[in-house]
């Protein structure tokens, strides 16, 4: 059944695809919330990488990858909360959540 040289490669490829999807979402969509969703997807794919390396790595009992993933989930939750708070705040200011209309930082 094995199509990949190693099971790890399968997980890594899934993570890569997911990362690309997240990046594409963050780049092509105009709504800030979808951009945030894309960023969450990228974070998740990174977590998948961490866990996969933990599982197939030489020292799973050291728990390094797992700890990274747990802490990263926590940080991602904080990031989501702050990001969405910012979006809501920006929406109140500009009455839009479309990113290409929010260009006050223009140089």
């Amino acid at each position, binding site marked *: 059944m094995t199509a990949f040289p190693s099971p790890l490669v399968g997980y890594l490829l899934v993570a890569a695809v997911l990362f690309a999807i*997240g990046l594409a979402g963050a780049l092509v969509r105009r709504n800030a919330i979808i951009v945030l969703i894309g960023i*969450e997807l990228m974070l998740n794919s990174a977590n998948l990488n961490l866990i996969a390396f933990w599982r*197939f790595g030489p020292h799973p*009992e050291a728990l390094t990858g797992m700890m990274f993933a747990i802490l990263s989930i926590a940080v991602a939750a904080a990031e989501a909360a*702050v990001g*969405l708070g910012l979006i809501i705040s920006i929406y109140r200011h500009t009455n839009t959540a479309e990113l290409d209309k929010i260009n006050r930082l223009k140089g």
Partner: protein
Amino acid sequence: MNAVFYLLAAITIAGGLAAILLKHLIHAALAVTVAFGGIALLFLQLDAQFVGFAQFLVYIGAVAILIVFAILLTHGAELPREGVFSKSWITALIIAAGVFAVTGWAVLQSVDAVPQRNTVPAVSVHDIGNALVGRYVLPLEIVGLLLTAATIGAVIVAMLEKERSR
């Protein structure tokens, strides 16, 4: 590497794709929830029970709810008149494809270098707890601090307007 993996990978990727392609924001949010769930199941598939359930709890229980709330609060549930994609979506897609190409190529190139170990790690929740308050206690504390700061920050950012208008 078995059927379950392929199924889960398919669900996850489909969820992710749907999340960025669906026009309706709420649908996108629900689709991304599917992707989150798929990743949680992939974690379970990787024998990381604790992380998997944590993923469920945090992402489906909290982040997804947060996202839909944000959508409703920004009136995102109504479709915008001009399209949902930005004008230069082609360049964006090319860039994303480029990133995928680079990462995928890197993965496939290093097949020989990746570890081949394939026994189930004997790690219990107890070990995770011990590691969290033992060797990794400093990161844990820092994350705790960060979460506190983020919570307060989010509240302040979202509340400021109301205060001013009073």
